[in-house]
């Protein structure tokens, strides 16, 4: 570790060649995972992640480095080596840093240090057992809880040393169903920035086990999804991954600032149907994607991205903001000290509209109801994205009909947002992991049930009839 005067000394060593900002991010994380498989504890691991990441900025250029050796000698050596990339006159020096402990708005009620392994195993086994015994076609089940307790210290030439703590944990239950050579899977992974109380008090793991088993069996019995262009109703909760891929990523300053996003230079313009409003909120209490402060020390905030179809704000970090003439708005995140931070999403969702999910189904003559999605990806430069449907049904004459499997949906973000023609009132959020330049980070996605008037669906089931 390093003390305040050492921190000042290290920062000043990095400022000699003209950097206008320097930051040292120190992370010490303890992780624990327990994995149950087919009714027995299969593996258990403990991991300690520890290191420091140093960032120097000089106008529109950045240098970054990390090391596991968190001591004054190694950090001085690293920052000096990074500073070699700049060849300007010194513009900044630091004489004082204010130490502040950040208030933990998501502090755990039941910290995991007070929960022994046996209690966690009992909780997981209850749900895993329900899934395993649900039907003889369920041939493999697994459950796990992954716990992370992180302490960070952010030392910045903005004049502060911020000490923050975070607990976040995620449970998962998955199963494999098989019959006549067909194999399908079910999965749910609830998580939060919270302690064991989130699971013990709010996640009924037995009910979750039943849902996961049912989902796998349903897809086993499903026909292949037809392909072609059709109206698609996307279910609430994890259905929000559509918005995350199609719109969320292209709104990050990392691509907007370099004019490399389809939504660059479009503030104030209509980029979505007037039924669509969307928000990114890093302050939601115990939200899986929430943080007290972002990874450059700015407070997290609730940002309105789209209001009635009009683009209002981007997600901005200070560095990319320089190219835009804008300050960071609390969206700067990284996976760990090994990554240079940049603008990312936190908890991102489409807001409630005026229709009920029943009205949306009733209004659809022929199309697909993608009740649950499996994940996807996007090219923010062109806006092209894709996602897979993990639970889907055909809709005929306003009624939900036969389940279909193997469906995937593709399109461009720009078209899709304009094609949302009905928005439900049943908003829910779900957890996921988002991968991009600054690593894999926990995020919430979310939305109410929505309908896309027309999108390309891929599947093995022949033409749409």
């Amino acid at each position, binding site marked *: 570790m390093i003390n305040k005067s050492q921190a000042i000394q290290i920062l000043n060593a990095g400022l000699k060649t003209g950097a206008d900002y320097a930051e040292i991010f120190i992370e010490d994380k303890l992780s624990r995972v327990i994995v149950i498989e087919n009714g027995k504890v299969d593996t258990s691991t403990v991991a300690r992640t520890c290191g420091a990441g140093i960032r120097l900025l000089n106008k529109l250029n950045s240098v970054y480095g990390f090391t596991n050796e968190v001591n004054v000698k190694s950090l001085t050596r690293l920052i000096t080596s990074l500073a070699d990339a700049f060849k300007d006159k010194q513009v900044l020096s630091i004489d004082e840093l204010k130490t502040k402990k950040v208030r933990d708005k998501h502090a755990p009620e039941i910290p995991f240090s007070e929960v022994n392994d046996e209690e966690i195993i009992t909780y997981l086994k209850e749900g895993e057992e329900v899934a395993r015994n649900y039907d003889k076609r369920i041939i493999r089940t697994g459950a796990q809880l992954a716990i992370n307790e992180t302490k960070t210290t952010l030392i910045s030439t903005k004049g502060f040393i911020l000490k923050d703590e975070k607990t976040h944990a995620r449970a998962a239950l998955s199963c494999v169903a098989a019959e006549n050579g067909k194999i399908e899977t079910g999965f749910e992974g609830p998580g939060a920035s919270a302690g064991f109380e989130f699971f013990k008090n709010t996640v009924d793991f037995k009910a979750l086990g039943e849902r996961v088993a049912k989902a796998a069996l349903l897809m086993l019995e499903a026909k292949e999804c037809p392909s072609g262009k059709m109206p698609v109703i996307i279910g609430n909760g994890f259905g929000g991954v559509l918005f995350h891929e199609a719109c969320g990523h292209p709104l990050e300053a990392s691509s907007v600032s370099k004019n*490399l996003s389809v939504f660059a230079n479009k503030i104030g313009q209509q980029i979505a149907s007037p039924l669509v409003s969307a928000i990114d909120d890093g302050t939601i209490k115990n939200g899986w994607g929430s943080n007290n402060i972002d990874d450059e020390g700015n407070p997290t905030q609730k940002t309105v991205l789209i209001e009635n179809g009009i683009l209002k704000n981007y997600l901005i970090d200070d560095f990319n903001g320089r190219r835009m003439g804008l300050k960071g708005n609390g969206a700067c995140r990284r996976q760990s000290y090994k990554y240079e931070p940049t603008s990312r999403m936190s908890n991102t969702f489409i807001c409630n509209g005026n229709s009920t999910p029943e009205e949306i189904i009733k209004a659809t003559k022929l199309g697909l109801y993608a009740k649950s999605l499996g994940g996807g990806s996007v090219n923010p430069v062109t806006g092209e994205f894709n996602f897979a449907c993990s639970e889907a049904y055909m809709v005929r004459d306003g009624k939900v009909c036969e389940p279909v499997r193997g469906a995937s949906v593709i399109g461009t973000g720009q078209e899709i947002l304009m094609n949302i023609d009905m928005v439900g009132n049943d908003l829910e959020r779900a957890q996921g992991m988002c991968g991009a330049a600054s690593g894999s980070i926990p995020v919430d996605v979310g939305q109410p049930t929505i309908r896309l008037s027309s999108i390309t669906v891929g599947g093995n089931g022949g033409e749409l009839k």
Partner: protein
Amino acid sequence: MKLNEKKFFELAKESNFEAADIFFHKGASLSLSVFHGELNSLTQNSGYIITARGVVNGKFGSVTTEVIDKNTPEFLIESIKRTAKVIENDDPSIIFKGSEKYHKKSTFNKDVLTNDVKGKTDLLLDIEKKLLAYDKRIAEVVSVAYEESYSEEKLSNSYGLKLAQKQADYSFVAEVTAKQGEEVRTGFKVFASLDPNEFDEDKFVKEVAEDALSKLGSTQCKSKKYPVILNPETASTLLKFLLQSMDAEDIQKHSSFLEGKLNQQIVSKKLTIVEDPLRKSILFKYFDDEGVATNKKFLIKKGVLSTYLYTLQSAKKDGVEPTGNGYRGGSKASAGTALVVVKPGRTSEQNMISSINEGIYLNDLQGLHAGMNAQSGNFSLQAAGFMIRNGKLAEPLSLITVADNLLEMFNKVKTVGNNSEFVLRTGFDCPSILISKMAISGK
């Protein structure tokens, strides 16, 4: 500070561990990128990770740490005890005594580690200039980056086994956009190598630029079944999923579609796939992460499934020798592969294209983490490429989906090409492959 391994093994013995091992990974890298004529970002990283395991009462405990101080040996031992205590499965917990023979070789070339920030910056700036000058439709260079990295792996265990390997490699990555009217397309290429002299700047510039330019005028094709040529990247991407189903653990747990199919014809006779960890490549390994010696072996021979992929544990359960395919991920190793080589055929890609009246040439697949059902082999993925008409590449295609089943499609192999290339992303040396019919969805 170095880890006191001697102390760790002493404490392990005192705590009555039946066996213990330490896997030490160290890495360092330098990467730079340019944007608009300037060095835009530079990163210099170095770090290490230690994974330690111990067998306590027949159960595996495991711990990972990035901290080496005087307390580390005790921390490792206590964590192993804690994690081993809760294990209930009765799978054999094996720490390897050692293989009889290791094909020890070094591919380490320190000349790759130039530390030459100025020289590489100048080269990247030159590439950026050349890309913009290549064609007036090249609108923007999204990124041009270079990375050189060093890695070192050491395995030591309580039986006295000591293995070590180091490697240095480098890569160039570039992404550009091409614009025509309102249409924007991206082109992307990665070049990676162990040999500092292998990089050809002009060839690289051409490939990146042409990748973007060739997509201008992209449209969707009609939804129907077509003969499809998969280029080396897309062919190896799909074959890699097929290989993942050869994981013996999944077979033993009844969640692989290759269960019961050992030594049976599972795909076309035209497919022969070999794992070759000892060939000089970025993926060179002479021992796997569990200390088992690696060897060249058939994975699929003329369409027949020749072996499953084993770790020490899954091999013991099947009563076979381990195959050197154990990769670390915590306490439990899982099966993986080093360099995979798909045996090329005799037909040139040009001749494959000429043989098709109406078909599709695929060179891009997206959304694999979501659209591929690894257990069943069913997939539905976003794709891009070209229409083939009357034996020639025609209009570019984008935003189409391709759907099929892995086993079924690789039974429909019409031709395996002779144009093998190394695909970094998949770790395959693979040619183009023509599949007689696949379902494509577009308009």
